[in-house]
Structure formats: C-alpha cells, structure tokens
C-alpha cells in the first residue's frame, strides 16, 4: 500500500514538474517585466530626487512671455488729424503691438523673484518694467495641509478685485473694465504684499506707493509719504462637481496729492484784442504776482466686490460668469484724475461690470461684458441760467469671439462705447462716437 502511495506521489510530482517546465518561460517574462517596471519607477524617483536636489542647490530660471498684437479695424473716433494739444495722431485704425511681455522667474528654496518687461507701441515704441519683485514663501513646496504664505517686495500687481489681478493673456476680453483702468491704471504698483492661501481662502494685503505705472500724474513715483493700503479677501471653492465659485471683497485706502504752485512775479501781458499786431494802451494788462501755494493731500478710498462662477457645460466647455462693483472716492488716477482740492468737493466714483463667456469646444469661445463707470457722481454743468446735473458715465459693451489653438488665440471684439465727451446740439454732454472693432492675435510662450 505504501508502495502505491509512493508511486502515486512520484507520478503527481512528475506531472507537476512537467507542468512547471511548460509555464516557466511565461512566468519568467512576467517577472522580468515587473522588475523592469520597478526599475523604471526607481529610475524615475531617482531622477525626480536628483532634479529636486539640483533645484535646491541651483536657482530655477524660467523664461516665458506673451505677445498681443492688435489690428484696430475701425474706430469711430479715428481721424486723419493730430491732437492740437499733444501733437499725437488722432487716427486709431492701425496695427499696434499692445503688449509684448518677456518674463524671467527665478527661485531657490524659500526665495523667488520675477522680472517682466513690457514692450508696446501704444503711444509709440516703449519698453518698461511691468513687474519686478522678490518674494519669500512658506512652505517651500505647496502642501494642501498647510497654509501658504508669500511675502513680496517690488513692483507687483495691485491686490484689488478680480480683473486687476487677472493675467493679460488669460483675460478673455481685450482690456479691463473702464472703472479698473481709471482707478487702478496699469494694474502694477510698487510696494510690499503678503498673500495667504489655505484651502479655499485667497487673501492678499499690500502697502503700496499708490501711484501705479499707468498713473497720469507721477507714474511709479510717490509724492506723499503715506502709503496706500490695499487688499482683497477672497474665496475659491468647488461647490459641486464641475461648478467653481470665486468671490472676494477688496478695499483700498490712501492719500492723494494736490500739487501746489510756485510764486509768480508781476507781469505785463499784451492781449492783441483786435488782432492788428499793434500794441495799444487798452491791450496791456497787468497781472499781479502771487505767493506760492502749498501742496495738499486728501483721503481717498475704494471698496469693491467681485464674484465669478464657472460651470462645466459638457460637451462645450466652461460657462463663466463674472461680476465686479466698486464704490470709490477721489481715487481716479487714469481717466478723469480726481482732485477734490481743485474741484472743491469730494469726487464720488461708482462702477460695475458683468459678463459671461462660453467655451465652444477647446478651440473657440464667445463672450460679452458690460461695464459702466461714473468718475463723478455729483457732476454738474452751467447751462444757460441753470446749474444742471450731468451724467459723466463711461460704459462699454464688449462682444467677443475667440478662436484658440494650443497657446495661440485669435480674438475679435466689437466695443460699443458711450462717454460724456461730446456736446449735443442742446449743449448737453453726449457720446463722442468711439465704437471699435479690433482683431487681436496672441501667443503665449
């Protein structure tokens, strides 16, 4: 019996050995593949570690930029004339380099910085620094479980609202809303900024010169000692799958500047009243000298709110709504520069904008935005015997269509502009025709 058992066991073992001999090549291949996969993973990890080590030891330098070239196909304001005051041409129908930015980012450990230059031909060829700052970050690597702090000093974006901080090559419309171009001209200012990001929170606060690079008076300078304090408390949250909500409240408080005047001497002025080129006694006017007047400062502020809702609409793409409103006082630095000392009263500025964009596949987008800005809510005009209130509001309805391919865009926008710059037959302010059709080509590199 035991002999039969041995024979049986031997037969089973023989069969099993035979079976193993038949499976051996496949098993070996699988093992080899697994070894190769793990080897590749180890190599990748080693490469990543080596890359991180190099990044720690050597600053990472990255060069990027973008170009926005415009063809203003037609602007109703265009004339084949020059501005008698500035000597600049009044024609707007032209090709122009709106923005050509080159940016260098460098970082090592907790420190990083950026330098961005802008070349454009908006008012003739010019190159200027648009952003230049040094920052300290913590933690060094983004960690979802930790708040992220960034402290920066230099020339940087003003942390107010949504559109001011929206990147130029990301913004779907040609330019920012009128109110933001007026209140925060140029969008960049010199100062220090502290930014916090943690989960859905996105907060920034800065102390700045209060004289942005697009300021009509003293750009990039600071005529007053007091600094502008500006900041935004924002949230960025995915409230449901495919639905993202961003919102924030912003504030700005600072000090504006009214320049004084130097002393003047007594002068005699000849006013050729009858235009005959001859000096006559009644045409000589004595103008008395005046003492110098001191410069004055005034308080200014802005309070704003912004919201953005992004909804994923399959299969088209994102549907995005944006809205922003600002209530300000004496802050206009770009359109009708606010000077309450000269005006004799505070200038109340109100503006809002609302818009929507819809992606039509990854290659196209359409959108519309309406914005309105009133630089002086108490404006009035002497008309005949009456002092009458007038509407000084500027508004734009932008209708946009865009084609996209990889990093390139072709954007066509028609802007319907209203303004108070013309005079109607009845003497009341009316729109000076300024509608514009513009084609923009953009490439990000």
């Amino acid at each position, binding site marked *: 019996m035991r002999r039969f058992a041995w024979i049986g066991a031997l037969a089973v073992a023989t069969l099993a050995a035979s079976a193993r001999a038949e499976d051996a090549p496949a098993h070996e291949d699988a093992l080899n593949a697994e070894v190769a996969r793990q080897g590749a993973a180890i190599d990748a990890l080693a490469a990543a570690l080596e890359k991180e080590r190099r990044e720690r030891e050597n600053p990472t330098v990255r060069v990027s930029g973008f170009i926005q070239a415009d063809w203003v196909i037609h602007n*109703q*304001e*265009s*004339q084949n*004339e020059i501005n*008698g005051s500035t000597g600049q041409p*009044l024609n707007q129908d032209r090709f122009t380099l709106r923005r050509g930015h080159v940016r260098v980012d460098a970082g090592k450990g907790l420190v990083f910085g950026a330098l961005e230059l802008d070349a454009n031909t908006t008012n003739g060829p010019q190159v200027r620094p648009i952003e230049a700052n040094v920052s300290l970050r913590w933690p060094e690597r983004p960690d979802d479980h930790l708040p992220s702090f960034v402290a920066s000093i230099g020339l940087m974006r003003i942390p107010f609202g949504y559109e001011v901080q929206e990147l130029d090559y990301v913004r779907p419309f040609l330019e920012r809303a009128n109110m933001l171009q007026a209140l925060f001209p140029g969008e960049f200012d010199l100062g220090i900024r502290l930014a916090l990001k943690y989960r859905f929170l996105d907060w920034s606060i800065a102390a700045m010169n209060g004289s942005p690079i697009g300021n009509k008076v003293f750009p990039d300078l600071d005529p007053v000692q007091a600094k502008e304090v500006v900041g935004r408390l924002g949230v960025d949250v995915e409230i449901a799958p495919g639905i993202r909500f961003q919102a924030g409240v912003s504030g700005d408080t600072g000090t504006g500047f009214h320049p004084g005047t130097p002393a003047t001497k007594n002068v005699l002025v000849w*006013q*050729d*009243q*009858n*235009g*005959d*080129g*001859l000096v006559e006694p009644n045409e000589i006017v004595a103008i008395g000298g005046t003492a110098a007047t001191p410069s004055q400062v005034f308080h200014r502020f802005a309070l704003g709110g912004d919201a953005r809702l992004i*909804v994923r*609409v399959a299969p088209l793409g994102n*549907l995005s*709504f944006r809205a922003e409103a600002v209530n300000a006082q004496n802050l206009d630095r770009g359109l009708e520069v606010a000077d309450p000392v000269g005006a004799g009263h505070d200038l109340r500025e109100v503006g809002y904008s*609302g*818009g*929507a964009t*819809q992606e039509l596949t990854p290659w196209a987008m359409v959108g*519309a*935005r*309406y914005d309105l800005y009133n630089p002086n809510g108490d404006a009035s*005009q*002497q*008309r*005949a*015997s009456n002092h009458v209130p007038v509407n000084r509001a500027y*508004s*734009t*309805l932008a209708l946009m269509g865009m084609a996209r391919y990889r990093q390139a865009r072709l954007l066509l926008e028609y802007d*319907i*502009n*209203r303004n108070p710059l*013309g*005079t*109607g*037959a*009845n*003497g*009341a302010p*009316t*729109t*000076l*025709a*300024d509608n514009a059709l513009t084609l923009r080509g953009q490439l990000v590199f």
Partner: protein
Amino acid sequence: MRALTALGFAGVLAGAGAASCSTGVRADTGADAYMQVPGAQFVRGPMPQGSASGPSVDQVSLVNNNIWAGLENDPIGGAMGPTATAAAIGLQNDVGYWVVVAGPPDVATPTDPSFSANAVFSQGIILGSYTLVVRAVDQSGSFGPPSTQILVAEASPLNPAATGDLVVTLTWDTESNLNLHVIDPNGTDIYWGNQSSQPPFSFNQSDAGSYGYIDYDSNGNCVIDGLRTEDAIWPDPPPSGQYTVRVDAPSLCGQPIANWTVSVVLEDEQIAQARGVALDADTMGSHGVGSGVLALQFAVP
C-alpha cells in the same frame, strides 16, 4: 444648462442694450473749417434750418467785422432767448458749424442766456465776404431762426502784401524753414544771407540804379513765426534782363514736406508762377549762394 447660458448672455446684453442704440456726435477737429472755435463741438455739414418757433438770438457782438487768415481769439458773443441752452455758430457754406454751450445771462440782459466763443480763422481762408450765422438751440435740440453778420476777410495787417515795381513772393504751407533766392541780371543772389543787391557803400559809386532786397526770413532757424512767406522786392523799376528764382530748404523743422508757391508780380501784374514740394532730401547740402532748386526764370524788358 443651455437655458442658464442663454439667460446669462441675455442678461448681459439686455442690461446694456441702450448702449448699442446710443446716438452721439462724431469726433471731428474741424481743422479744415474756415472758422474754428477751440473747445466747442464741431458738427460737419450745414447748420439745420431751424424754425421761427425755436429760441431766438437777441444779440450778436463782434469786436469788428474784419477778419484775416490766422486771426486768433476773435471774440464772438451775444444773448439768446430765455429757452436757449446752446448756440450754433458758423460761416455760411463752411464745412460745418460749432456748438457752444449757453452761459449765464449778462447783467445787461438778465433773463437771456449768453454765449461766448473765441474764433480762429484758417490760414486758408480766401479773401472776400462771409456770412456769420448764429442760431440758438433749446433743450430739445430745436434750432431757432438765424442771426447773421457780414465778415470781410482781408489781408492780414501782420503780413501785408508786399508792394513794389517787382515783387517775387515765396509762400509755403507747413511750418518749415524755406528760403527764397532771386538771382538778378547782374548775377547777384539775393537771399537771407545777402539781403540786398545793393553793393557796399563807396564814395566812388554813383547813386543810380535799382536794387532788390529780401523783406523777411520766415521761420529762420526753425523759430516758427507762422508767416511762411518771403518777398524779394524792387521798389523802383528793376534792371532789365534775365532773373532766376530758386527755393532752398535749410530745414523742414520736423515737417514731412512743404508745398511751396513762387509768384512774380511786375508793375502790379503777375507774370510768372511756379509750384513745388520741398522734401527732407532737399535740406541736405549747402544753403548758401545759389543753393536750392530752380523754381522759374523770367525776363524783365
């Protein structure tokens, strides 16, 4: 979701629908108008006819009725009917008119809105008679009946026409520095560097003869005077013989071109005229005796 999309876009468009329907005025400097009013709104085209029921112009005040090319700050003012809110001012048959916002009443007319403008008259205005038209406009944009004044465009007292037996005149159209050269039958080049053909004083020299001179070096060294004219004048009968006129361009003073005209008047009769263009290339080289491009030649019997 499509409904949400449509709703969103409709909201944006509807909220701003009025903007697309807006009416306004065209941007136009009116620089080609004979009469210009800095700071006022220019409207191209004829002034509306208006109606008798519209606001009236009660008074138009002018310093004088004589105007000339380049006249500046010529005050035009007056008073209008009580309902007027603006005044439309222009020359009849000009390329357009100007809208001036009505001001508060003057003391002399305490119930009537006033209007005030400082007019400038184009360098290109042609001598002759013009009709100044002023209409009052009310709040609804209704034009009233016209009030007219006759203006007479005459030669500028600042730049009176040169007189003499022989006058060679160079004029040009941009604020450039051009020079007139006239070479008389004796071969003397009369220009800004040699302003007279009269030889230096000498005790042995007879007093006989007629000499020409250059009256002015306009825009010399690009000091812009706005006259843009130079004359070579022979007050007495000029020497007989062949004369050559050249036009030199020392500098265009930043202007792209200068269109020039040379005319020759002999005993009050124009006997020759030439036109040309000075380009930047013409400013190169010497600008002394005999320089410039040939404009014309003429003979004095």
